[in-house]
């Protein structure tokens, strides 16, 4: 009975092609073994992006015009081009940078998860460049959403500009942008799959290799499961934090925020006092 069901399942076109038990069984552990690669790329790349994004956001709010111009250009270029293109340009472009060959040999001897350090560093650099631009806009929107009275009160007590930023503005910003930052991490984590084009052996490439060998889509479905394993719980946490922030803010009954200067457009990073929403996916369709 069970045998005949499995036989039917695996020969029926849809179930057999996408959810083949035998092939899922074969692919499960090889793909699971590459999960740390995807996760490490996401976590380390995103982590590096936090200080990077903060510095870029300060530069974007700088009083010095050229600094602001350069930062705006950088953010526009990163946010306005597909990440896969950024990977192709930088991953295969970095080896042509003068001096690369000198550091290449020693670094190549260091290997984590069967991937040498030059590959790790190039991939992490690309993720850093990409996510720092997005995080900069999240930080900037968050910082600018703190009422002006906060910095005025701090400055009128004699705190310096940077003390005010560090002890008054940023602690409040972090609370507000946390959900958006987690969403950004989810995006970064998913984008590590694009390193397929650089032949970095993460989950998606491993699955694609098995797919090629078996002429069956099931390994890719297994990979989807491993992505969802991380993204769905995180997504729930994001939703819960947003609700909590909205509740707290409506409970405080503080002064109403001033009206926005213009209605938000697609692609804006929008902050209302409760939560931060990026429309990143909608526009850029990465």
């Amino acid at each position, binding site marked *: 009975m069970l045998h005949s069901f499995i036989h039917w399942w695996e020969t029926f076109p849809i179930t057999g092609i996408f959810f083949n038990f035998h092939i899922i069984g074969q692919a499960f552990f090889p793909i699971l073994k590459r999960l740390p690669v995807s996760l490490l790329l996401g976590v380390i790349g995103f982590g590096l992006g936090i200080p990077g994004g903060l510095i870029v956001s300060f530069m974007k709010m700088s009083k010095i015009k050229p600094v602001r111009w350069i930062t705006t250009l950088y953010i526009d270029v990163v946010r306005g081009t597909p990440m896969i293109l950024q990977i192709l340009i930088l991953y295969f472009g970095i080896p042509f940078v003068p001096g690369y060959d000198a550091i290449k040999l020693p670094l190549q001897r260091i290997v984590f998860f069967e991937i040498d350090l030059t590959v790790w560093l190039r991939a992490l650099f690309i993720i850093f460049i990409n996510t720092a631009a997005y995080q900069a806009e999240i930080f900037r929107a968050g910082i600018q959403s703190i*009422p002006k*009275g*906060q910095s*005025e*009160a*701090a*400055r*009128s*007590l*004699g*705190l*310096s500009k940077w*003390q005010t930023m560090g*002890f*008054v503005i940023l*602690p*409040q910003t972090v*609370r507000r942008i946390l959900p958006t930052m987690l969403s950004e991490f989810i995006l970064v984590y998913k984008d590590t799959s694009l390193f397929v084009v650089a032949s970095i052996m993460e989950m998606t490439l491993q699955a694609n290799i098995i797919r090629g060998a078996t002429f069956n889509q099931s390994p890719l479905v297994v990979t989807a499961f491993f992505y969802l394993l991380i993204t769905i719980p995180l997504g729930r946490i994001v939703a819960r934090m947003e609700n909590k922030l909205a509740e*707290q803010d409506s*409970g*405080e009954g*503080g*002064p109403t925020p001033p009206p926005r200067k213009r209605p938000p457009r697609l692609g804006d990073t929008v902050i209302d006092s409760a939560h931060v929403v990026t429309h990143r996916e909608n526009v850029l369709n990465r």
Partner: protein
Amino acid sequence: MEDVAYTPADVAMPADAIIRIKNLKKVFGDNVVLHDVNFYCPKGHVVSVLGPSGSGKSTMLRCINLLEQPTSGEIWFEDQLVNSKETDVDQLRSKIGMVFQQFNLFPHLTALGNVELALRKVRKLDEKEAEQIALDQLEKVGLSDRADFLPSQLSGGQAQRVAIARALAMEPHVMLFDEATSALDPSLVRDVLDVMRDLAKSGMTMIVVTHEMAFARDVSDHVVFMDGGVVYEQGTPERIFDHPERERTREFLQGMIDITGGADADAPAADDGYEEYMTSSARFQRKGAGMI
């Protein structure tokens, strides 16, 4: 404009007055907010600044601690020219306390944390010392039992008293109040005004932008009436309230009496001390009504 504003630009300012404002002008784009403001505040005095909204009172106050940069004119704090390039802004501000209409407490810090922050970071006191001073200040405003509360857990009146304690902890030489009671429920105004009264009695130099006429009359040594970015009339409270020289001062005061009369009628049942507040404004009301 029926007449030209009365601005005693050449009024002799005693050099020992703690705040001296001369020919202060402030322009935002095309909008001249302050035309020509002149007055001074001797040490230990309370100066009340009255005037309709949009008359530039708040802007004038914010120029004193450089939250706004004056366009021209001179502001002197003790022997220091405030609006000069050499001013150490942070050091200046640590000697000038300011209390805002919207309290502007730091919502991520407790009442104690709010008071401690500048003690730790500006005056660089150690944890114990800062905490002791902060607790003392909270006790002075009657809130020692609220030290560990977050601003969101405080009433408006309590929040504003914490804000006053926060400013006082820095031992400022002068306190600026920017409509400190305007955002409060009428029933909470009294607590804050009481704290301000005590502060005035203790000899603190204060410049108070306010719509509380009874307070201005009872507490101040000098009243400045501003309208349209100029000091329209100034003098002792008796002179401004009982014998205003200018028509517009009279109109403004009459308007404020009407509003205050209405607000008092709505105020909740009196407990002790509230009586006093009531009587003082009722007394003012009688006098005010008589003068027109």
